C-alpha cells in the first residue's frame, strides 16, 4: 500500500503514523501542507497534533493549506482518507465529514487508554472488526466531544456511518464509558461513500509490541485486506 501522511505545522503524530505504516511494510511518504500534489497514494492520513496551534478552532486554519484541495479531490474520487484526532477535526472543518469536535465536557485534556468498539462492518476500515468487541486504543485530546445536530445524527445512524463508539472493557456502550461527552458515544465516523474515516482515538499508538496495547493493528489489518 502507498500511504501519504500530511504534515501541517504543529502536527505531532505524523511520525507515529509514518512509523506504523513502514513497520507494516507499506510505502509511506510525508507530504508537506504547502505541497500542491499528493504522491500517488492508496490512502492519505491526516495525523494528530495541533495544526497551526489549533488557533481559532481546531483544524480551522489547516483548511487553507494548499494540499487540502488535493485531499478533497482525492476523497471525492473515492480515495481512502483517514483522519486521526486533529486529522478528524480537520476533516469536519473542510467538510469531508459532518459535525464538529467540541471541547470535552470535563474541559480537561484527556490522555488515557480508552476502549472503543466498531459498530459498522461495512467499510474498508471496519470490515475485519467484530462489532461489540472492545479495542484498547489511546485517546489524547481536549476537543474530542463530537457534536452533530439531530437530523445529522439520524443520517449517520440510518446510513450506518458511525464507525466507532466509546465503550467499557466489556464492549458495553454507556454514558459511563463516554470519556468526553460525545453525542451517542461517537468516537469515529464515515462519510456517505465510506472512504473517509475520522476518529479521535489513536490506532497508530497501539499497533506494535513495544507499547501497552496492540489493538490498533486490527484496524490497519482491516484496511490492508482491501488492498490484497
Amino acid at each position, binding site marked *: 500500500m502507498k500511504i501519504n501522511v500530511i504534515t501541517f505545522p504543529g502536527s505531532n503524530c505524523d511520525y507515529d503514523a509514518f512509523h506504523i505504516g513502514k513497520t507494516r511494510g507499506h510505502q509511506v511518504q510525508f507530504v508537506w501542507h504547502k505541497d500542491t500534489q499528493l504522491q500517488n497514494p492508496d490512502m492519505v492520513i491526516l495525523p494528530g497534533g495541533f495544526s497551526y496551534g489549533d488557533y481559532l478552532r481546531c483544524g480551522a486554519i489547516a483548511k487553507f493549506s494548499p494540499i487540502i484541495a488535493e485531499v478533497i479531490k482525492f476523497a471525492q474520487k473515492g480515495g481512502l482518507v483517514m483522519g486521526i484526532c486533529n486529522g478528524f477535526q480537520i476533516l469536519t472543518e473542510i467538510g469531508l465529514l459532518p459535525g464538529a469536535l467540541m471541547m470535552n465536557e470535563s474541559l480537561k485534556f484527556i490522555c488515557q487508554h480508552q476502549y472503543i468498539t466498531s459498530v459498522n462492518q461495512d467499510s474498508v476500515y471496519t470490515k475485519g472488526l467484530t462489532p461489540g468487541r472492545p479495542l484498547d486504543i489511546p485517546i489524547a485530546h481536549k476537543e474530542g466531544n463530537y457534536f*452533530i445536530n439531530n437530523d445529522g445524527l439520524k443520517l449517520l445512524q440510518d446510513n450506518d456511518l458511525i464507525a466507532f463508539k466509546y465503550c467499557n472493557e466489556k464492549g458495553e456502550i454507556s454514558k459511563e464509558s463516554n470519556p468526553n*461527552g460525545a453525542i451517542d458515544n461517537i468516537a469515529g465516523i464515515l462519510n456517505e461513500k465510506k472512504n473517509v474515516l475520522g476518529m479521535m482515538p489513536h490506532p497508530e499508538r497501539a499497533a506494535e509490541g513495544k507499547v501497552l496495547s496492540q489493538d490498533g493493528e486490527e484496524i490497519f489489518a482491516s484496511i490492508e485486506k482491501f488492498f490484497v
Partner: protein
Amino acid sequence: MIKAKVFVNLKPSVLDPQGKQVMNSLHSIGYDNIEEVRVSKFIEIKLKSDDLEKAEIEIHEICEKILANPNTETYSWNLEHIPGE
C-alpha cells in the same frame, strides 16, 4: 480605517461546557441569580479602507470562510470608522 467587531456565538442547541463551568463557579461564590452562562468569541479586526459597504461584504465573507463554524456557531458583527494611524 474601519474597525469590525465580530461576535461568534455557539448555537443554542450546542452544549457549552465552558459556560456551564463558569456558571458553577459563579454559583459557588454566591451569585444565585445566574440562570445561564454561554461563552462566546469576540474578534476585533481593523480594515485599511474606509468603504463601509465593501467592509460589510468582506467581513461577512471572512465569517463564513473561517471565523465561524456553521455547524455549531452563529456570528454577527458591527463596523465603525476609526481614525487612521
